[in-house]
């Protein structure tokens, strides 16, 4: 797969298509774009029944931000599946190594090359990122923000920590595994528990909706951050580099 990426960039591929065909394709794409733009302009500002529908039911959702209301209350099923997809991604890239499960989640090590600028910068930046992430999570109830944004920021902090080289994460540790699943687990638990009061899965009772959404979002933030850092970690592992080079050289004509 990776070899196709590099091969696709070579000039050999371009030469396969004659100029006339390329011109026709460009013309067709341009015409399609023009048609879509004209259609969009002609369409004008349409009535948006969903906007009024969400606005009229906003006080039932437990939050004031319509986006959060849709994501975590009205269409929480979609978000639940999104978190599940992220977990599947994490399982796909996770280095499966049962021996490492005894090693601690965060281990301190001596970096091979130190970057003093990054270290000094991180001392100030890391607390700021963590606080900002918490703010984004909390403010998601009333203003733009939420679990995905907060989790992504937190993951950025984790990646910067990895780049500084003083710490390494081991995602086979039991604490890390807990972080990876806590978002989905809490979401499923809350979704199932509300059956007791409302009779329908994921239909939160109105009085509790705000606090339940916050609990789900806190867990989802931790999971999203952990999974995104895991993605970066999976790429940091020293791969058998010689193998890759050999394959690319062989397939190049």
């Amino acid at each position, binding site marked *: 797969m990776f070899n196709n990426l590099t091969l696709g960039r070579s000039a050999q591929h371009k030469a396969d298509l004659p100029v006339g065909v390329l011109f026709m394709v460009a013309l067709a794409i341009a015409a399609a774009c023009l048609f879509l733009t004209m259609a969009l302009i002609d369409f004008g500002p349409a009535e948006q029944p969903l906007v009024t529908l969400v606005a009229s039911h906003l006080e039932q959702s437990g939050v004031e931000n319509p986006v959060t209301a849709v994501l975590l209350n009205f269409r929480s099923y979609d978000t639940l599946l999104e978190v599940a997809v992220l977990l599947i991604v994490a399982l796909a890239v996770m280095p499966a190594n049962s021996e490492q499960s005894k090693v601690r989640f965060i281990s301190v090590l001596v970096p091979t090359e130190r970057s003093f600028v990054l270290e000094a910068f991180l001392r100030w930046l890391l607390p700021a990122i963590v606080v900002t992430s918490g703010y984004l999570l909390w403010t998601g109830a009333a203003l733009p923000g939420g679990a995905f944004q907060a989790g*992504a920021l937190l993951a950025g902090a984790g990646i910067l920590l990895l780049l500084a080289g003083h710490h390494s994460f081991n995602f086979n540790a039991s604490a890390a595994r807990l972080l990876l699943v806590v978002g989905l687990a809490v979401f499923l638990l809350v979704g199932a528990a509300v059956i007791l009061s409302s009779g329908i899965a994921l239909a939160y009772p109105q009085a509790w909706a705000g606090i339940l959404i916050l609990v789900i979002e806190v867990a989802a933030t931790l999971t999203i951050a952990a999974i995104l850092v895991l993605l970066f970690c999976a790429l940091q592992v020293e791969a058998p580099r010689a193998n*890759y080079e050999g394959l690319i050289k062989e397939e190049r004509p």
Partner: protein
Amino acid sequence: MTGSELVIDLLLGCGTVVTAVLCLTAKDMFQAILLFISMGLLVTLAWVRLGAWDVAIAEAAIGAGLTGALLIATRRQLNC
């Protein structure tokens, strides 16, 4: 919509398309990654202009920030 706002919107829209084309046609992979990150930032501004603040924050954090870091790490693995 006033004239200056229209100019900003047009610049953002055209800038996004131009950066995307440059990113796809770039010979050097590192150059392509940097152009991809710049395109992400322009798209973020476009979302802001459209009033979609939630999407703008997510695009800035994931689209421009994390994807860039992942792509650069991948490039190091490919060693090209």
